[in-house]
């Protein structure tokens, strides 16, 4: 047992070194490899420490899991990364919950099920199960199986409140040992599944980065809680690392939208009322063609590309890079402006552009790029909307007021590519589209960029 614990410490150290190396694109790949070696050590040490293990059963489980996991990992497209991470979160949370449940059934009816053990089991089962069902709903929303729009019905918050109270009551009964009836335990599982669903369905597409980060954090906390159940340092440390990581990302995402976590999770109800009042404004836009866009770009020296979720939907990352390279060939400076909540998960745009071979040092985040718009000739907005809406700076009645935005309107000319005039996620019209210096080019981002590329070459 001593050696096993030593191995867990080694694994934890490797995880920490691994995450540390994720701090730079140059060392990141080796960091991931180091972390996976840590995992291997932890697994081998565990298997070796029990002599009566049913190796066949474990091997079968691991082979099935590996095949499923590897298939997902190889097949997934970079644009689908958010749903991929969501579903993996779900499996991680589910695994923790199952382990804790297994402990409950084993220790049930014995003196081993003391207050500490049963309390941590309940916590682990609750968080793990909620992560499992919540992640699958998030996956469904991102994949389009479930509507990406907020699904809200009256009494939802009250229902959630009752479920939380129910879980706390039942959890306390089991924990202090008043009643450890198995049906009560099943009750916790059922309530946690429902709560995962009802907490996730009211959250709209653009708020997904927060939800995914939060679920990521939960999957870590669930693993930690399971570590407390099993008195296992390996699980506790690893779970805490993941929990911290998810919380930090959640916080960054909320700051990126200038909203509190509570507002993201419970805010969908209020959003509907607010949007009604702003719908009245009419905006006259100038619609244009790629020919004209090419001529505007020809006269520019400095171009900033602003990608949004529309770019991901259209799979237009390669087309964007081609246009950028053509512009560079024509002697222009090209930068990319990445808003923290562009896309559907933290860093979503960065991964897409990395896939398209855009050097990462050309991708600038909010703080670095905003001063650059002052002397920028053309900003090209590709399927982004709310993150470039100037109303966030001045319109106190706007639902997105106060959200830090990319100051694209300070560029001499703004070229906006959108599929249609449909408002963005926040449901508000974007006054930027009606500005004097804005030109709209409607259409699918990929088709538009491909045509623009040809037009630029023909200049």
């Amino acid at each position: 047992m001593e050696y096993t614990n030593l191995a867990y410490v080694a694994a934890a150290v490797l995880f920490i070194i691994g995450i540390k190396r994720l701090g730079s694109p140059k060392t990141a790949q080796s960091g991931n490899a180091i972390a996976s070696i840590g995992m291997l050590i932890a697994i081998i040490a565990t298997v070796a420490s029990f002599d009566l293990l049913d190796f066949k059963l474990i091997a079968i489980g691991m082979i099935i899991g590996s095949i499923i996991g590897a298939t997902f990992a190889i097949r997934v497209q970079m644009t689908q990364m958010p749903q991929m991470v969501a579903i993996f979160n779900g499996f991680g949370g589910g695994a923790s919950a199952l382990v804790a449940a297994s402990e409950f059934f084993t220790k049930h009816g014995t003196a081993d099920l003391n207050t500490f053990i049963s309390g941590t089991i309940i916590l682990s089962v609750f968080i793990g199960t909620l992560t499992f069902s919540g992640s699958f709903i998030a996956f469904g929303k991102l994949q389009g199986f479930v509507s990406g729009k907020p699904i809200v019905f009256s009494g939802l918050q009250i229902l959630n409140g009752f479920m939380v109270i129910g879980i706390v009551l039942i959890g306390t009964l089991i924990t202090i040992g008043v009643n450890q009836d198995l049906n009560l335990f099943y009750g916790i599982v059922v309530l946690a599944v429902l709560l995962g669903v009802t907490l996730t369905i009211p959250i709209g597409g653009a708020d997904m980065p927060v939800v995914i980060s939060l679920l990521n954090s939960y999957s870590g906390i669930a693993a930690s809680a399971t570590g407390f159940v099993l008195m296992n340092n390996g699980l506790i440390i690893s779970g805490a690392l993941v929990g911290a990581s998810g919380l930090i990302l959640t916080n960054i995402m909320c700051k990126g939208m200038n909203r509190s976590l509570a507002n993201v999770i419970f805010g969908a109800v209020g959003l509907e009322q607010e949007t009604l009042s702003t719908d009245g404004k009419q905006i006259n836009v100038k619609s244009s063609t790629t020919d004209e866009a090419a001529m505007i770009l020809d006269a520019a020296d400095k171009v900033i590309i602003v990608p949004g979720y529309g770019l991901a939907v259209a799979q237009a990352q390669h087309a964007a890079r081609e246009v950028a390279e053509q512009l560079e060939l024509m002697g222009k400076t090209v930068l990319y402006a990445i808003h923290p909540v562009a896309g559907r998960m933290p860093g979503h745009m960065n991964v897409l552009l990395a896939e398209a071979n855009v050097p990462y040092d050309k991708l600038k985040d909010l703080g670095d790029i905003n001063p650059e718009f002052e002397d920028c000739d053309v900003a090209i907005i590709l399927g982004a909307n709310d993150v470039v809406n100037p109303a966030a700076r001045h319109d106190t009645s706007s639902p997105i007021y106060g959200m830090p935005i990319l100051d694209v309107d300070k560029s001499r000319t703004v070229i906006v590519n959108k599929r249609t005039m449909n408002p963005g996620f926040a449901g508000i019209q974007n006054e930027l589209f009606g500005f004097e210096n804005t030109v709209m080019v409607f259409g699918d981002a990929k088709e538009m960029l491909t045509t623009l590329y040809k037009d630029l070459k023909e200049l």
Partner: protein
Amino acid sequence: MDMINILTVFILAIFVGNEIITKVPPTLHTPLMSGSNAISGIAIVGAIISTKVGGELGTWLGMVAVIFATINCVGGFMVTNRMLKMFKRK
């Protein structure tokens, strides 16, 4: 004493996590998320243990947990590697 010990470990680990994760640049936030996600597959350790000690029902729950956690680990590390390979080439 045991309880205090593991609580100490837990709290210190959160501080370490906080320290190293705030240093990861936004460019790498997606790989950070999928990589740390793979690490949360450490539940596989618990899953393996519970196939042994869990009795009949516990064994089967542990078996399903092994499958889930392996999907999480293998898929998570592989997909992170796929992404980071793209960041490396220039």
